[in-house]
């Protein structure tokens, strides 16, 4: 009888050895070559050369875009004379503006002429709210960022993390990281129950440069759709898959954004 009870108990526990999980699957992508132009362009209120990156979508995961080289790219602020962008380096698909600052309230128009077709997009920036102090916590002998919503407006914060100048960096490669925290102020169940992110730990002495970007309504909608297809995808409450929205005219994807940014730099100090 004892053996029977033991058997039943073991049998009852078995399910938890075999319940749901995730694993790699080898299925072919139904790849398709498209002639879409993928545009990634952000103007900010920083007085710099702003970059517009143009490429063709790639057909396999973890791939790289084939650059769209030789395009005629211009940006116009309201009705003023357009800036012409310069491709640099040559054949890189990266186009730079002259040094200027994008201002809140102005409408910026991007125009791309490529192989006889013209693509365009418009956006304007909204003010950005100030950053609050960087919050981080100790995990064993390393540190991890505490990220949470703040402020009233949709925004995202890019964190450039480098510990190259610390003793923990043994090589010159692999001592950098980039984390982006999105706070779009939307209520989406796939965001609330989004899949877990990998832990990212860094040593004491790490330098973190933060840039907080504001987001216009159209930019927020674009970021929400991108996140639905990327970071928020794969949780238990997924939504129907679809292409991310765009503010580019037909034939192009991606987004031309104009944002306001604030930034700060923090060096990680030892915490109990």
């Amino acid at each position: 009888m004892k053996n029977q009870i033991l058997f039943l108990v073991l049998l009852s526990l078995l399910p938890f050895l075999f319940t749901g999980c995730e694993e790699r699957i080898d299925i072919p992508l139904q790849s398709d070559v498209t002639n879409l132009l993928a545009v990634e362009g952000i103007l900010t209120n920083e007085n710099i050369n702003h970059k517009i990156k143009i490429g063709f979508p790639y057909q396999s995961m973890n791939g790289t875009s084939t650059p769209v080289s030789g395009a005629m790219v211009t940006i116009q602020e309201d009705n003023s004379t357009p800036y012409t962008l310069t491709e640099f380096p040559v054949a890189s698909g990266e186009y730079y503006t002259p040094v200027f600052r994008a201002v809140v309230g102005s409408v910026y128009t991007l125009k791309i002429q490529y192989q006889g077709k013209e693509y365009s997009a418009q956006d304007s920036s909204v003010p950005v709210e100030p950053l609050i102090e960087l919050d981080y916590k100790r995990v064993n002998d390393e540190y991890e960022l505490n990220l949470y919503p703040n402020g009233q407006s949709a925004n995202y914060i890019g964190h450039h993390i480098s510990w190259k100048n610390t003793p923990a960096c043994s090589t010159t490669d692999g001592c950098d990281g980039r984390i982006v925290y999105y706070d779009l102020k939307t209520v989406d169940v796939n965001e609330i129950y989004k899949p877990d992110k990998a832990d990212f730990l860094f040593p004491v002495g790490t330098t973190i440069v933060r840039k907080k970007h504001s987001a216009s309504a159209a930019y927020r909608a674009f970021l929400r759709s991108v996140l639905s297809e990327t970071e928020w995808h794969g949780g238990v409450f997924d939504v129907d898959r679809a292409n991310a929205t765009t503010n580019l005219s037909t034939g192009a994807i991606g987004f031309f954004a104009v944002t306001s940014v604030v930034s700060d730099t923090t060096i990680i100090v030892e915490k109990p």
Partner: protein
Amino acid sequence: MIWIDPRTRVFLFLLVLATHVSVAQNVPEVKISISAKEKSLADVLEEIAQKSKSRFSYNPKRIQSDQTINYQATNKSVNEILVELGNQFDFQYSLVEGQIILKPVKKSEKSVGESIQNVTLSGFVKDASNGEGLIGPSVYIKALGVGTTTNAFGFFSLTIPKGNYEVFITFIGYKPFTKSIDLKTSIRENMLLEEEPQVLSEIIVMGAPAPVVEEIQVSKTNLRPRTVEERPALFGEMDVIKSLESVPGIKLQSDGSTFYSVRGGSRDQNLVLIDDSPIYNPSHMLGIFSTIIPDAITDINVYKGDMPASIGGRLSSVLDIHTKKGNDQYLQAWGSGGLVSTKLGVEGPIKKNVSSYLLTGRFSTMRWLFQNADENLKEFRFHDLTGKMNFRFNSKNRMFFSFYTGSDNYFSGNNGISWSNNAGTIRWNHLFSERLFLNTTVSASGYDYFLYTDVSKNQRWNSHINNFNLKTDFSYFIKPQNELTFGIGVNGYNFNPGNVQEGSSNTQISNQSIRNSVEFVLYGNHEVTLNKKWGIKYGVRLSSWTNIGEAFEFTFDKNHNAIDTLAYKAGEPYITFVKAEPRLTLHYLINEHSSLKASYSRNVQNAHLISNSISPFTSLDVWLPSSVNIKPQLSDQFTLGSYHQLAHSGFSLVAEAFYKKMYNQIDYETHAETLLNPFVESELRFGTAQAYGIEMQIKKDEGRLRGMIGYSYARAKRHFAELNQGKTYNAYSDRPNQINVTLSFDVSLRWTIGMNWNYLTGSPYSSPVSFYSYNGLEVPVYGQKNNDRLPDYHRLDAAATVKLNRNRESKFQHSLTMSIYNVYGRKNALYINYNKTELGSKDFKVPSNLLDGERAISQFYLFQFTPSVTYNFKWR
């Protein structure tokens, strides 16, 4: 050779008889015996003439003597025989100079004649052991070849000529019942059926024609609670919704889901009724289990089309569940204990034979299992509670009170979700006469969903749908196999499409209008067997749906931008939809074992689920009524079926082909915002859908080996002008091939084993055709909507139940069920992900560091090889 048709031959023969055979004056009193099976009336009359040494005279065209009849009489007078036949075939006889003259009955004479000659046998068919009214037994008068089935309360009514009859009642799981009744006047008599004890032989008793062959209804499957109980179940949790996967044409979305699609429809197009109250979300644990357990159920019917006119409001299916009324003979308790829940039930008489009660509950017991896995887990529980009371005031009046309540609560960290379903029904059965049955139902149900975005501040998003229904149904049993049902109903609805509540008060930050609707329904349905071959069922359901203020609605331009707000005062009716839902079914009985049926039906749906989730789990459910921006959904369905019963084997075969076109279907703008979006209707897109296919099923409900084998091939397509570049795309439920095998076998009187195997083509989904990079994220680019398919789904389950008692008469019966879900450990994908990185064995996460992380294609699946043990007991 001169060809003379049979009717003329009979006529000539009778004329010859008339000239040569002398007729005794006392012919009507001569007693003879007749046994006719599948013979023409002319042949039967000839036999009567021979045996009674009489002669007949009639016009074969007016009497229709070529019709085939079944007739039996033992030592009856010719008078009795001719009266019975005359009532059945609308003629009367007279004796003129020793000759029997047959004349057709004129309509006016017929009604008078009927009132004199016909009487009604009515009553309830009940389970002898507990008094439970049995739904669906076939009550058959062999001598007349006529019969009927009991209604949802076990009531039957047969209006037949006076006489001495053998009443024959058959019902699956019960011993065949026969009773001699001398019908001189109308009588009401309850018939008590005894359960068939388990035997280890394949004895199939064939009595009346199989219901699936004889009934005019198409696309209906009756699931016995016992069949549900015998199926191997996940964690041993017997589950009505999950058992629907054994019905061809019904496709469960995935493991761990109670969502199902019927004949290409959407998941919100399925109506689940418990005692006439709708249950909007019949799921526990996000859908891993359903709320409906078979313990408290007496009957389950699922309609995939051709729904009864008395039921409406959904396009694709009705799952009509009736709970037990409670044992009115003795106290009984039962229960079970499994890995995730404990069930307890009790039922018994309040006053023996007069009133009874039933109370059953299920409570989750699995929190401890997950507590160690997730330290943030605060709540993880569900429960159900079902109750019923029944009172028989006198032979004509009976009342039922029933309720169902169930809830789920899952809280982890500062987030949580919870939902609850509540339903209550009061029913009054009244017999105006032996032929007119009334059922009046008052029911109310509500479904609430909460999403807690900040538990510490009690900040939560809430949506609900509540409804109140009042309906009166009449059943008028005109004659055997001639029934008229009609009724009237009024339904009230209250929709909250989702608003935020904060703090302890119920103050709502409303950005979406609460909607109120009222629906008036009038329906009628006539089901009649025209002759031995043909039957027809036709009817119509008329509904008038009106939205009533206080409410506000937005109007949108063609680009879906809001352009105006329409405000309506409290009590102000502001939009009405009047719809007719006709239905027609033709039935042709090829022979006693085979029939063909053809059906058309239209359905209307005015309550719509707004959700762009593709998750198989219960997520945020928002219901909206038909209104300014949402037109009623409509469907037209055509069905052609062939139905057979294999004589003496107990097998029934059903094959149906269907075509369904659905209008005003809802889909969504890409990445639609359906939560807290005041302009949520601007995110909706409208189009059409169509589904077609064939379904086949072999079923055996009785015997040592029982089960169902089904196959279906069906397609489901959708077309929306504003989606997928206006091109037609596969619906999410487009899973062409479906195979289901469910078997149970009694190894011995104590051991029963069972298995089920299900196969489904994988669900369509949109897979990326390419990618681009934005802000360090790898963004997929999609081509055609639903261009790809998940891997095919298949799963084998097995179970064995052992009765722990050796004494079958013991008052305490208990058993142990061991089941294995997904025996061969198939990894059935719920999702394919393209955005995660593999950190270790089966550890997939979204990369944090955008400069690093090689993404891989991964599949998420649930429940590989999952054994479980459940202990069940019953005491009386």
